[in-house]
């Protein structure tokens, strides 16, 4: 289960996030956004989910099953097409 930033054990190690806005050193909005994004990616990296939305085991397994389902359906479709072709050629 992913931690939100606030719940993450490492959150307290970034004291600047806990500072009252008035106590924080003046930064441009771009700087603030850049730092926030980079910290967020560090945390997501610790959880091993950089760049991908985190899925539960159940959702991941479901996706694996759906991938197999897709291949089963594709094989059925191929079989139907090939059977028709064979019969047309034979006719």
């Amino acid at each position, binding site marked *: 289960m992913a931690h939100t930033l606030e719940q993450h054990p490492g959150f307290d190690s970034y004291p600047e996030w806990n500072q009252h806005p008035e106590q924080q050193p003046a930064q441009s909005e771009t700087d603030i956004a850049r730092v926030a994004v980079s910290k967020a990616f560090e945390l997501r990296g610790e959880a091993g989910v950089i760049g991908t939305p985190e899925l*539960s*085991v*159940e*959702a991941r*397994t*479901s*996706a*694996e*099953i*759906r991938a*197999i*389902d897709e*291949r*089963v*359906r594709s*094989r*059925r479709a191929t*079989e*139907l097409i*090939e*059977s*028709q072709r*064979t*019969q047309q050629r*034979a*006719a």
Partner: protein
Amino acid sequence: MATFRSLFSKAVGLVAPVPVPTLPDLIDAESKIGGTLFGEAGRGIQRRFFLDEGDSWFFSETATDPTTGRKLYSFTIRYEILPQGVLKSVDGKGHVFITGIELEHLKQAVALYERKTDTELYAPKRTKRTESAAA
């Protein structure tokens, strides 16, 4: 003898056209193979396991008394494959998302189904077509 008969029939144009299977035909054939994935069924027990035309897997078991032919019991489990997980219901009731070992076993059964239906159903058809085309 069978070979001579088939050659003779072919020579005189008596070969009956092979019927083109429909999707339900294929699913029916697959379901019989799927039913063998769970070990040997006892006498009078018929199992089927298959992917329907949508996103659901079905496991059904029907038991009949081998001596009288009387139906003893029957149930159908549906596993609906949804993005958030796999929703199970038995005879249309008791919907629950499965987890743990049951989910893992379903995944293994589905993977085995893919392999076994290919080996036993589709590969022989492909081979037959290839041989016919080459002849």
